[in-house]
Structures are given as C-alpha cells and as structure tokens.
C-alpha cells in the first residue's frame, strides 16, 4: 500500500525555504562585499542571516521535543545528514552572524578587514553547506520521489534563485542598484530548476511504484501547486525578466524578486507534500 | 434396525426397561434383537410376522436417490461434477467429517441440514471417534424439561404448530402477549443481560412493545439500546468485579467447575445479580425470601432443596455470593482456597472424558433408545406420530425448502445472511473502545457482490437502504462491493447497529433485526433468522 508522508509539513518547507534563501543571500552579499561595496552588503548579509534564523525558529515549532535538541550536540550521530545540518546551520549562523552583525551595531572588529573576510568566508562555506544539506536530507529517506540526485540539486538551485530574490529586495529597500549580472544569474538558476523539476516527470513512468504515485499526485491532487510552480515559479520570472529588459523599473524588480522566492517555496512544498512511501503491507 | 411400512421401528418388546429393536440377520435369515445379530442386513426388504419392513439404511438409500448432484446443482449453483467429486473424496478419505452446525435454525430446514451432516459423519464412522468428532462429551445430551402449561411461549408455540412447543423456546411469542394480550396480558418485563431491541426479530415491534409495558426493569452492565427502554435500571457488576457461584465447565471438553473471583473492587454502585434478586425478594417478605433460596437450591440440583436453601441463605448472609460458592464447593469436596486461586477445578480431563465417551459409544451406552448411534431419529418420529408427516421432521432425512428459496432474483432482491466478527461479542464488548476501532470498517458494512454493485451503480462507501421484502422495514447501511459474496446474496455483521447515545465508542453498523420478522421453525420454534429477502436502494 502506498502511504503519502505526513510527518513533514509546511513548517519543514518554511524552514528549508527561509534557510536556503537566507544562506544564498548571504553568499551573494559576501561576494559583492569582496567586490568593494561593503556597507550595504553587510546589511544584506544580515538580512540573509535573519531569514536563516526565522527558518530555524519555525523548525523548532515542528520538533516534538525541542528541548532534547541539545543531544544533537552532546551525543551527535555523525552518520546522519541531519546532524551535519545542525552543525552547518549553527556554524553558518555564528560566522555569518558575526560577519553581518556590524550592519546593526558597531562591533570592535568591524573595521578589521582580515577578520571580516575570515568570518565572511567561513560564513559562506557553511552557508553553502546548508544549501546543499536541505535536499540531501530528503534524499536519504525511503521516499522514492526524494531519493534522487535531482532533489539536492533542485534545492540548491531554488535556494540560489530565492537568495537572489531576497538580495534584490534588500537592495531595493536600501535604495541600491541590483546588479544586472545577478538577475541574469537568477534566470540561469530558474531555468536549471525548471529542467530539474521536469526531470522528475520525465523518468516517472519507468520508476518505482512509490515514485510514480508521487508524480501522479503532483498531476492530480497537487496539480494546482504544480501549475503554480511552473507558471509563477519558472515562467513568470522569465517573462518579468524579459519585460524588465525592455522597460526596466523598480516595480519589475520587486515582482521578479517575489516570484523567485515563491519559486523556492513552491518547489519545496510540492516535493515535500508529494512524498510517498510504498509499504509492503 | 427394521422399520415397517407405517414408519415405526419393529421391536421384540421390552426387557429390563429397555425396548429391544429388531434387525434382519442375514446369517439366520430372520429378524433378531440387534445385539444377537451375526450379519445384520443394511439393504433389502423383508417380511416379519406378516409385516413388510426395510432396514433404515435401505430407507436412507431410497430417500436420497432423488437428491442427485444434478438436482443439487440447480439449487446451490455448485456444478454437479464438483458435488460428485467431493462426495467420492469424502467417502474414500479417512478420517473425514462435516461440522454438524450450531446457532440455528437460520432456515426452516436447518434441522434437516444438520441431520444430513450428522448422517454423513455416521456413515463414514466419524461420530464419537477420538481425533475426529466427539459430540455430547461432558453433557447430559438430554433435552430440557417442559415448561409450565401457562407459559406464554409454550402457548404461542403450540398455536404456531411448533412440534416442541412444550419446551418453551419461542420467546418471540411474548410480542403477541404484549401487543394483543394473547394468550394473556403482560404488564412487566424483567430483563437480565439481554439486548432485546437488537436481538429480537422484527426490532421495530419490540421497541414499541417495551414502550407499551407498564414497567420494564433491566439488569445490565452497559447502557445498551434495550436498557434505554427500562423504567428501572439495576446496574450489575462487570466480570472483573464479581465473585460468582460455582458453574459447571461448559464450553470445553472437560468435566469440572469454574467460578469468577473479583479482581477489582466494583468501580461504581453496582450489585451482583444474586444480590439483586436476594435483595428484592427480601423486601417482599420472609415468605418470598425463603422461597427464593429454596428455588435457588432446587435449580442448583440439590437433593433436599429446603435444607440446602437454608444453608445457602446462611452462607450468603455471612459472606455474600462467595459464601454460596463455598457451600457449593464443600458439597463437591472441592478445596475452596484452591478454587479461588486457580479459578477452576478439572474433575475429569479432556482425555479421560473423550475415552469415556468413545467407550460408551462402543459398548452401546449412548442416550439413544438403542444405546447406539442411529440414523433413524426417534425424536422426530414421535413428532411425526403426533402431528403427521412434514419433511421438516422426517425421521430419516428429507429435503425441505427454506421459505426464501427462489424469492431473490440477484438483480434487485437478495438473500440476506449474517455473520460475526472476532472483535465483538454480546453486550460486554459493545462499548469496548479498542475493539471498536480495531474492527476494520468493511466488516461493519453490507457486502454486495462487486459485479452486482456495479450494475446498480453502487460504489464502496455509498449509503444504501436494505428493505425487507416481507415487512417493508428498512435499515441503512454502508455498501462494500466485494467478490467475497455471491451475486444473489448480501452479507452483514449482526454484531453492530447499536444506537444508544450512552455508548461512547460505538461506530456504524447494520441493525440486522430490523429486517427480520416473527417466525418459528416447525421443529423447535427458533426464529429462523436468515429467512429474509431484501431489496437494495441507493440513499
């Protein structure tokens, strides 16, 4: 019998969305920080870290017994992707946070370029690991839809797309230019995410029963979400991007940014809610 | 055994109080007492003192010759070839046995059906054989005594033409008494652990009847549907809360006694049923109270009910129901302490009992008039002598039609049958929370053949209405289209259909007896619970 998973719900989706978006925005912010624009990008990095923190707080509400989470640090199981995820999240938050806090308060090392670069690098490394772990976590389960290299890949891609979106919103808020190449980059990630998503459908009919069932769900009960993902998450950003090239405006950028964030939310939601396991009973 | 043309067995008179039945001895070419026969004839026709007679086996052969596999195929739908094949297999295989049935009669011919099964067993030597079938082990195997001539059930049964009306099995007769005052009016019903509105046939009528009575008193452990009609409810101890008297071990092939010892103190303000009756009769006065104890002693089989009654009363007044048990244990030389710690005492174990039973069979000491296993039924023959011939009490065997045969077309009308589920039994599990949710939903639904359901546009989970073709009464059910049931039949579990809102954990089901009607089987007066044809309607 096929059982649709219901252990992980919207709170997991939101954790992964905010998390992926936040750490991707951080990496983008740090890269542009290195290019020279320091003051704004520290603030943008902070926005990223706040997003990561929000995600983690939402996650805590999903845990059945959050107070026991201390054991992840006391008796960690190093064979578990989740354990590594906890480390990466904490370390990203610590180093990224330390890097970004100067955007809010003056700290002793704020002027120290070397320290800032170190913190930023470490923050970025762990941020990338957070991006990668979100999909890998899902891949190491008995849910066949998730158990494919496409899942970590897809989750990295939509994290990057949404990271661009968050960064762009921060830029607009602080009345800064959104770099053209960043927007172009988000079109690459969007396109690749579209291809990766479509690959699930492309191999469904020769996959296992549980996989086929998940895809069937995505095309029936969850058809609305699938349609929303393709229309709002992939096609609309491309359309807005092309339109913005003809008639650039702040509004277009905001719309595009929101759509890119939506792409991440919708993709993760769809994959999580369509997950199913085939039980041998 | 030789039987004359008029259907009576031939005898050589009585010796030492036992009638001596005759068989034809082929060795000496004459009729002799069966214990003297060298080569008793199974087949043939013989003349004894001018009377023509045949052995029972010959009569059986002649009787069943008309019941060919082809004939049976028309009724059952099972291919004649299969019937023949099974017959040959059954005849050639040793050991072989057919379950002789219980919980009947469901049909007008149930008595005959189980007779046929028992005859098959007798023919292949399976009856009362260790390792095959042992019947009557540990029991007296004699019928219960007649009830009083004033008994409502007996009078009603006789009116219906029930052969064994004097046994008073026909509880359904109470309806006429309550509704119409026939044979006389009833004002009060005292119900002990009986869920009449669920288990009485033609449920609607029982509900009205209970409302019509002046007083209804109910003793029970749950607020089940029937209890809700009571004017006075006397809640009783549940099985874990009670000390019981001594009972004979019934549903196991051993001879012995068992009892219940309270495992917990009663949780609520309840009493043991003996406390209730003792308490009521005491309030009625010394005369009634005394009568109660004497009657109790008599029912326990005491040789001197007066003396034993006094003893029981004294013991009860000192130690309650436990005291009664002690008296009973003493009378049988059973150590009360051992009884209370183990709960049961086996006097004769299964092996001993089986051996005894087999021995009795082999030495001709069974309770039949001949002491042997007889295909010929003396009981049914005496009914025939009283009431004339009916296939329902043919002393050998006869096919008799159920009332519903041929009345279902398998397209819009269906035979209704019922069964049980492992998670439910009687009132005591009606409100058991886990048994309720552990019962899979499909076992609460009405099973209808998948192909038939499709043709009627009925899907799994659809609400349907089952309407009794005979009475027009209807009940709602949830449909379960399945291949587990024949095209012309619908199955429901009779275990559900409770409506009492006081039951916290009940779920849906089908109230079976809404669809039955008041009937009495011609032999014993049973309610013939499956003589029902229903129409199916979508809700």
């Amino acid at each position: 019998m096929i059982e649709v998973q219901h252990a992980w719900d919207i709170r997991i989706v939101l954790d992964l969305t905010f998390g992926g978006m936040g750490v991707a925005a951080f990496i983008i912010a740090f890269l542009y920080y290195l290019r020279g624009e320091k003051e704004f990008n520290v603030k943008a990095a902070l926005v990223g870290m706040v997003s990561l923190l929000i995600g983690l707080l939402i996650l805590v509400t999903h845990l059945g017994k959050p107070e026991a989470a201390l054991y992840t640090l006391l008796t960690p199981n190093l064979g578990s992707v989740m354990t590594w995820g906890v480390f990466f999240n904490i370390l990203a938050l610590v180093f990224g946070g330390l890097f970004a806090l100067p955007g809010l308060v003056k700290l002793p090392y704020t002027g120290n370029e070397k320290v800032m670069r170190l913190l930023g690098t470490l923050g970025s490394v762990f941020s990338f690991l957070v991006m990668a772990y979100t999909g890998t976590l899902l891949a190491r389960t008995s849910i066949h839809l998730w158990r494919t290299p496409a899942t970590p890949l897809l989750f990295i891609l939509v994290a990057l797309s949404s990271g661009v979106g968050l960064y762009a919103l921060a830029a607009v808020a602080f009345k800064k230019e959104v770099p053209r190449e960043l927007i172009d980059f988000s079109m690459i990630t969007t396109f690749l995410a579209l291809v990766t998503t479509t690959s699930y459908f492309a191999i469904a009919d020769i996959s296992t029963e549980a996989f086929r069932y998940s895809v069937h769900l995505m095309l029936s009960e969850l058809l609305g979400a699938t349609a929303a993902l393709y229309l709002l998450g992939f096609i609309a950003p491309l359309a807005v991007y092309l339109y913005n090239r003809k008639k650039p405006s702040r509004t277009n950028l905001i719309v595009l940014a929101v759509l890119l964030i939506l792409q991440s939310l919708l993709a993760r939601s769809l994959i999580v809610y369509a997950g199913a396991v085939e039980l041998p009973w | 055994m030789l039987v004359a043309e008029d259907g009576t067995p031939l005898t050589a008179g009585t010796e030492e109080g036992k009638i001596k039945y005759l068989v034809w001895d082929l060795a000496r070419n004459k009729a002799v007492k069966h214990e003297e026969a060298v080569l008793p004839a199974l087949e043939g026709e013989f003349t004894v003192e001018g009377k023509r007679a045949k052995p029972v086996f010959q009569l059986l052969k002649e009787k069943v010759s008309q019941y060919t596999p082809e004939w049976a195929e028309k009724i059952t739908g099972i291919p004649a070839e299969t019937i023949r094949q099974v017959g040959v297999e059954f005849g050639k295989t040793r050991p072989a046995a057919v379950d002789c049935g219980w919980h009947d009669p469901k049909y007008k011919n149930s008595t005959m059906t189980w007779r046929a099964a028992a005859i098959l067993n007798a023919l292949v030597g399976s009856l009362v054989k260790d390792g095959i079938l042992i019947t009557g082990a540990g029991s007296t195997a004699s019928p219960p005594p007649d009830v009083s001539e004033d008994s409502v059930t007996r009078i009603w049964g006789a009116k219906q033409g029930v052969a064994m009306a004097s046994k008073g099995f026909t509880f359904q007769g109470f309806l006429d008494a309550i509704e119409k005052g026939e044979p006389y009016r009833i004002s009060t019903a005292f119900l002990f652990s009986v869920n009449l509105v669920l288990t009485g046939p033609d449920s609607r009528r029982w509900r009205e009847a209970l409302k019509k009575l002046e007083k209804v008193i109910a003793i029970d452990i749950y607020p089940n549907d029937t209890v809700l009609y009571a004017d006075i409810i006397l809640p009783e101890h549940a099985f874990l809360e009670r000390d019981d008297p001594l009972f004979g071990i019934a549903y196991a092939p051993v001879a012995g006694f068992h009892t219940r010892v309270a495992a917990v103190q009663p949780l609520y303000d309840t009493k043991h049923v003996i406390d209730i009756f003792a308490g009521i009769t005491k309030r009625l006065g010394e005369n009634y109270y005394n009568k109660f104890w004497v009657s109790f002693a008599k029912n326990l089989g005491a040789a001197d009910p007066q003396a034993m009654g006094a003893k029981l009363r004294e013991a009860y007044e000192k130690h309650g129901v436990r005291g009664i048990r002690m008296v009973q244990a003493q009378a049988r030389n059973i150590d009360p302490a051992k009884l209370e710690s183990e709960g049961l005492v086996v006097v004769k174990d299964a092996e001993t009992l089986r051996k005894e039973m087999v021995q009795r069979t082999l030495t001709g000491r069974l309770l039949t008039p001949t002491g042997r296993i007889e295909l010929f039924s003396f009981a049914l023959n005496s009914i025939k002598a009283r009431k004339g011939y009916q296939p329902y009490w043919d002393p050998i065997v006869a096919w008799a039609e159920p009332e519903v045969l041929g009345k279902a077309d398998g397209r819009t009308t269906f035979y209704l049958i019922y069964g049980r589920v492992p998670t439910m039994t009687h009132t005591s599990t009606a409100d058991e929370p886990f048994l309720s949710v552990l019962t899979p939903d499909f076992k609460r639904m009405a099973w209808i053949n998948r192909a038939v359901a499709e043709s009627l546009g009925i899907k799994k989970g659809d609400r349907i209405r089952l309407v009794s073709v005979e009475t027009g009464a209807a009940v709602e059910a949830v449909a379960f289209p399945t291949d587990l049931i024949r095209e012309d039949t619908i199955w429901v579990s009779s275990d559900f259909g409770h409506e009492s809102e006081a039951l916290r954990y009940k779920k849906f089901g089908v109230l079976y007896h809404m669809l039955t009607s008041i009937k009495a089987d011609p032999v014993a007066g049973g309610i013939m619970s499956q003589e029902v044809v229903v129409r199916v309607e979508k809700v």
Partner: protein
Amino acid sequence: MARYGMVIDLNKCVGCGACVMACITENRREQALKAIEEGLQALENFKKRTYIVTHIFGTYPNVGVVYTHMICQHCENPPCVSVCPTGASYKTRDGIVLVDKEKCIGCEYCVQACPYGARFWDPYIRSIDKCTFCAHRLAKGEEPACVTTCPTGARTFGDLDDPSSTVSKLVASGAAVALKKEEGTRPKVFYIFPMRRR
C-alpha cells in the same frame, strides 16, 4: 548474545487482531487509557506498533483473503538508526532496534527513513515509538506479547543465530522471506506467504 527475529506465517493468520491488542495492553497501556479518556477520535488516531491489513483478491467464486502484518523489522542495517541526529535510535547487541525517549527530539527523520512505516510519533510520551520485540519480556525469558497471544500460532520468535530455533529453520528452508530487500535494510522479520491451491 542472540540475533532476534520473527517469522509470521500468513497461512495461519485469521485476521483477528489479537496481536494488535496484546501489544497495546502490554506496551502502551497508559497511552491507551489516555486515548480512551479523550474519546473515539483519539482512538481512531491511535498509532500502533503493529497492525494487520486485509487483502481480498480474485473474482467470485475464486476469492481469497490474506492478512499482512506491519511490524518493525528490527533490521540489521536500520536506516532509522543511521538518520537519527541524536542517536536516540539505536540497535542493541541482540539485534533489537530501540528508541531512547530522553534523546528523541521528534524530528521524525526516522519516520521518513523507514521503508516499513514502523515508526510513529507518540504525543503521549513525547517520543518516537515502535515495536521493541517486548525486550522487557525477553529479559524475563518470555516471548513478545503478540507471539504469545496469537491463537493460531502465526507468529513465531527466536534467535536467528541458533540453528535449532524454529525461526532459523523456517528462514533456512526458504519458506519465510524478507520484504523490501532492495532497500538494503536486511530485516529480521520474515513472512511465509499463503499457498495457492489449484
């Protein structure tokens, strides 16, 4: 040191569900009483360490019924153990997979990792819960409650490392098979599937 396993003979199972109830009364009595207090809905939602599923197959009159049994397979390569972040999920030296209530954070990663659907979040004890092969009974030399209760003897239990045990013999004979082998879990509960007659 044993290697505990179970064999479930689906030919013998009559679908009575006594094993399900025996497990509840043996292992989850407090939770059960709480659910009873809460009423029918809580009971309907009451998760189980073991349960049976009814399968009806065929077309009338050639129909059959089979009951399959869900129970933790106490895998030798348990994915639930490898994914648990705190090590709350662990395997004993006797091959029993258990959950340390203290350490369980309720992330339900193990629920997603188990291909047999054997694990569930028990809100009453605030931990993941599942079959324990009645380890507390094994310690006293008794068999799991479900095994003892089964009226037809459909469930047998024993040491797979003891060649004379019933379970060993059944597995060695090939009559009892493992499920979802392709997941690489190496389960220790084996099933004897019903014979097809004719």
